[in-house]
C-alpha cells in the first residue's frame, strides 16, 4: 500500500515541470549566469592548461640546457686540439679517484726487478684542468668574443706529455671532462697485470713472451748443389691471436731479426758442415705507443677472426647513464691498416668507429650507455671491427667505465647515431 502510494506520489511530483505557483523566475537572467559561469570555467581551464604547458616547456628547456648547454663548439682549432693530452686525462681520472686506487705506473725496470707495485700518488697539476666558457644569453658578445667563448679552452699539457687526439671530440664527449664517478673497471690501466678482464684472445705470459722466431720461407737448390734456406722472423713479436700485458717493447724484447741464408750440402739435410750465409737485418716490428703510459695490453689481431679484445661484466644501476672510454694505438711498424675499433655494451655498439691511423700515438675512443629500467649487469667490450689481413698490432690502455650524474653530460643524442 505504502509503496503503491509512494510510486503514485513520485509520478505526480516528477511530472511537475513548471515553476511552483506563487513564484516567478527570470529565465533569461538564469541563462546569462550560466553562460558567464561557463566562460569563467573555460578561462580557468585555459589558464590551468597554459600553466601546465608552461611548466612542461620550462622543464624541457631546463633539461635541454643541462643536456645541450655545454655542447662542443663547431670550431676547435687544431692547435687547441693538440693541447688535449692524454696524461691530463689520465691524471684527471686518477686525481678524481684518489680515495680508491691511485698510484703511479711503476717504471718498467722497477717492475722487472721487484715484481711489486709501488703505490705512489702521482703529483697533481692544477693547470691540466679543462675549462668551458659558456656565453650568456643576455649579453651578446662581439664576433671575436663569441668565437672565443665558443671555443673550449684547454691549457697546455706538460711538455713531456705528447698530444693525444681522440675521436671523442667528434663524438661530443670528452673523457677528460667526464664527471666524477668511480671507474667501475678493475685494472683498466693493466698495472695489475692480466687480471680483472677477459679476452677472446690468448694470453701470452709476459716472461714467456715470444719475441720472434724464424720461419723458413724458401728453400732453393744452389748451383753447387747446396741449398739456400731463407728464413725470416715472424713479423709480429706477438703470436697472432694472442695478447700480452707489457710496459713497452724494449730493445731486448723486440730484438732485430735477420734474414738468414744457410748453405748446406747436397744431402738436403742440415748438417754441421753447412755454412751460414749473409744476414740482412730486418726492421723492428713493434714500437711503443706514445706517450709512454706504463703497462698496456698489446694484441696481435692478425687474421684471428676474433672480436673482443677486452670484455668484462659490470654491475650497473638501472636507468643510469655511464661513460665508457679507452685509448688505443697502433704499435706495428709494418702495418698498412691498423684496424677499426668500437666500444660495445652487451654486444651493441655504443661509440663511433675508431679507425686507427698509422702513427703510434694513443687515440681515445669513447661512448655512452644508459642502463635499462631493470638492468643491473652488463657486459662491456672493446672490439675489433675489421681484422686486417696481417700486421695488426694494437695497444690498449686506460679503460674507464663510470657513472655520469644526471644532467652533467652534454652530449647531443644525434651524435651517437651509429
Amino acid at each position, binding site marked *: 500500500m505504502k509503496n503503491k502510494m509512494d510510486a503514485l*506520489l513520485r509520478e505526480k511530483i516528477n511530472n511537475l515541470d513548471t*515553476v511552483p505557483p506563487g513564484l516567478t*523566475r527570470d529565465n533569461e537572467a538564469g541563462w546569462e*549566469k550560466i553562460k558567464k559561469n561557463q566562460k569563467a570555467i573555460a578561462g580557468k581551464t585555459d589558464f590551468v592548461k597554459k600553466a601546465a604547458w608552461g611548466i612542461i616547456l620550462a622543464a624541457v628547456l631546463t633539461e635541454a640546457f643541462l643536456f645541450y648547454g655545454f655542447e662542443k663548439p663547431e670550431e676547435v682549432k687544431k692547435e687547441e686540439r693538440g693541447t688535449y693530452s692524454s696524461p691530463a686525462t689520465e691524471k684527471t681520472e686518477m686525481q678524481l679517484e684518489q680515495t680508491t686506487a691511485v698510484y703511479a705506473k711503476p717504471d718498467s725496470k722497477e717492475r722487472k726487478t721487484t715484481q711489486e707495485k709501488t703505490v705512489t700518488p702521482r703529483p697533481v697539476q692544477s693547470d691540466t684542468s679543462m675549462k668551458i666558457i659558456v656565453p650568456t644569453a643576455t649579453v651578446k658578445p662581439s664576433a671575436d668574443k663569441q668565437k672565443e667563448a665558443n671555443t673550449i679552452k684547454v691549457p697546455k699539457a706538460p711538455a713531456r706529455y705528447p698530444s693525444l687526439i681522440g675521436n671523442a671530440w667528434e663524438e661530443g664527449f670528452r673523457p677528460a671532462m667526464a664527471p666524477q664517478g668511480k671507474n667501475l673497471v678493475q685494472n683498466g690501466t693493466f698495472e695489475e697485470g692480466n687480471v680483472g678482464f677477459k679476452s677472446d684472445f690468448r694470453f701470452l705470459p709476459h716472461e714467456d713472451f715470444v719475441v720472434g722466431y724464424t720461419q723458413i720461407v724458401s728453400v732453393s737448390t744452389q748451383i753447387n748443389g747446396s741449398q739456400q734456406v731463407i728464413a725470416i722472423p715472424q713479423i709480429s713479436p706477438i703470436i697472432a691471436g694472442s695478447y700480452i700485458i707489457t710496459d713497452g717493447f724494449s730493445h731486448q724484447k723486440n730484438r732485430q731479426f735477420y734474414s738468414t741464408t744457410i748453405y748446406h750440402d747436397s744431402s738436403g739435410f742440415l748438417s754441421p758442415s753447412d755454412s751460414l750465409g749473409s744476414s740482412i737485418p730486418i726492421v723492428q716490428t713493434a714500437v711503443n705507443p706514445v706517450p709512454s703510459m706504463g703497462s698496456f695490453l698489446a694484441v696481435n689481431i692478425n687474421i684471428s677472426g676474433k672480436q673482443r679484445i677486452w670484455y668484462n661484466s659490470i654491475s650497473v644501476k638501472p636507468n643510469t647513464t655511464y661513460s665508457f672510454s679507452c685509448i688505443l694505438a697502433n704499435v706495428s711498424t709494418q702495418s698498412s691498416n691498423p684496424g677499426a675499433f668500437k666500444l660495445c655494451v652487451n654486444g651493441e655498439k655504443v661509440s663511433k668507429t675508431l679507425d686507427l691511423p698509422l702513427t703510434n700515438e694513443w687515440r681515445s675512443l669513447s661512448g655512452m650507455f644508459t642502463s635499462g629500467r631493470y638492468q643491473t649487469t652488463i657486459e662491456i667490450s672493446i672490439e675489433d671491427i675489421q681484422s686486417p689481413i696481417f700486421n695488426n698490432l694494437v695497444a690498449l690502455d686506460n679503460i674507464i667505465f663510470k657513472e655520469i650524474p644526471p644532467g652533467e653530460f652534454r652530449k647531443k643524442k644525434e651524435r651517437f647515431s651509429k
Partner: protein
Amino acid sequence: VDESLIILCKRGDEKAQRELYDKFSGKMFRVCYRYLQNQMDAEDALINGFVKIFQGLNNLEYRSKEAAEGWMKKIMVNECLMFLRKKKTFSGISEETGNDMESAVIPVDDLEVEEIYAMILKLPDGYRTIFNLYVIEGYNHREIGAQLGISENTSKSQLHKARIMLQKLLTQKGITNEK
C-alpha cells in the same frame, strides 16, 4: 530530450544549449526548490547544475529520453545536496533506530499534486531531504545514508518522522488515510 539536441549541445552549440535550458529549467527548478525551499538557493543550484550538465554532456552516452532526463535530474539533486551539506543540514541528525515503518501512508489520490508539493516544502530540511530522496527519487536507505553521511537506520527513522509529519499536515487539512 532528443538525441539530436544532446549531440548539438555536446558540440557546444549555444542555441541548442539554450533550447535544452528553456525546456528543462522549469522542471529542474522544481526539483531544486523541493530540496532547498528557497528560491535564491534553488536558482543558484539550478545554474550550477546546468553548467555541470553542459560540461558533462560529453561523457553522457545517450540511451533514451528518460535516461537523459534522469541524468540531468540527478545532477540537480546532487547540487542541492551540496547546498544542504554546506548548511550542515545533516550534521545535527542524531543516530536513531529505524523501527515502526508501517505507519504514515499518504493518501495521494485525494490530493492535488501541488498540495502535496506544498506539504513537502513544509517539512524540516532533514525530513524533507530524506523524503525527497526516498519517495520521489527512489533511492534506498543505504544509498541515502551514503549520500548524506548518515546511517541507514537514521535515514529510516527520518523518513518515518517525515511521513508522520505529513500525516499530521493532512489531518490538519481534514484528509485522512482511512481508505
